[in-house]
């Protein structure tokens, strides 16, 4: 497996959706390739940090406004 092939399957690897033979091949590559090991570690961490940064919750006051908006619209019908 080349570096390119290894990087291409990292998403599936983290999802646990890869066939066992490809997992074994990737893990053999990772055992021998420090840059790809570093890439995997930072890719995994990026997913974790990205999930936190992209998750923005609805402010309480917006919930209230939305409820009021819908009640007003329903009354107007």
């Amino acid at each position, binding site marked *: 497996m*080349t*570096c*390119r*092939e290894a*990087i*291409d399957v*990292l*998403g*599936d690897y983290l*999802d646990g*959706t890869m066939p066992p033979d490809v997992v074994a091949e990737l893990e053999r590559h990772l055992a021998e390739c*420090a*840059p790809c*090991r*570093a*890439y995997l*570690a*930072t*890719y*995994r*961490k*990026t*997913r974790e*940090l*990205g*999930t936190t*940064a*992209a*998750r*923005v*919750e*609805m*402010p309480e006051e*917006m*919930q209230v*406004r*939305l*409820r009021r*908006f*819908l009640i007003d*619209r*329903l009354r107007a019908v």
Partner: protein
Amino acid sequence: MTRYSARVFRLAYGITRSAADAEEVAQDVFLQIVHKGAGFEGRAALGSWIYRITTNLSLNKRRGKRRELETSLDDLLPTYLPDGHRAGDRAFLVADWSRTPEHELLSDESRRILEAAIDRLPEHYRAVLVLKDVEELSNEEVAQIVGDTIAAVKTRLHRARMALREQLTRYLGAGA
């Protein structure tokens, strides 16, 4: 309503990156739910319909806006030699910063860089990233919502994560 409105806002904000736009999307989504009434076969059908309509309305909101911010992802992806090994001026960006102390990873500056990187992703990539990594849907569900193939969803997600990783590495890798 609270459960659905939280999901709608998270997804709409994730795609539009604007609280005002996300609020308008949420209003439009709930108006459509009210008009559709009991036309859903069950909660699952309603849940995935909500994700689909929220995605479409959010992408429409984004149309023509802030396009100048969006980056060509190709500049942020790894490059390889013809034999598949690493190449080019980005080959050095392999520093392992994953063990950087949490307080540094979560610092205001790291957060700012990450949020700017998310802002610069093309909107279809951001939609897939939020549906998969924030809403934790399966590739199959995401493909259904965005109306694309599973292979296309996986490619977009992977490219989006690689682009974010590259931008974080340029900042965090320097000290690793």
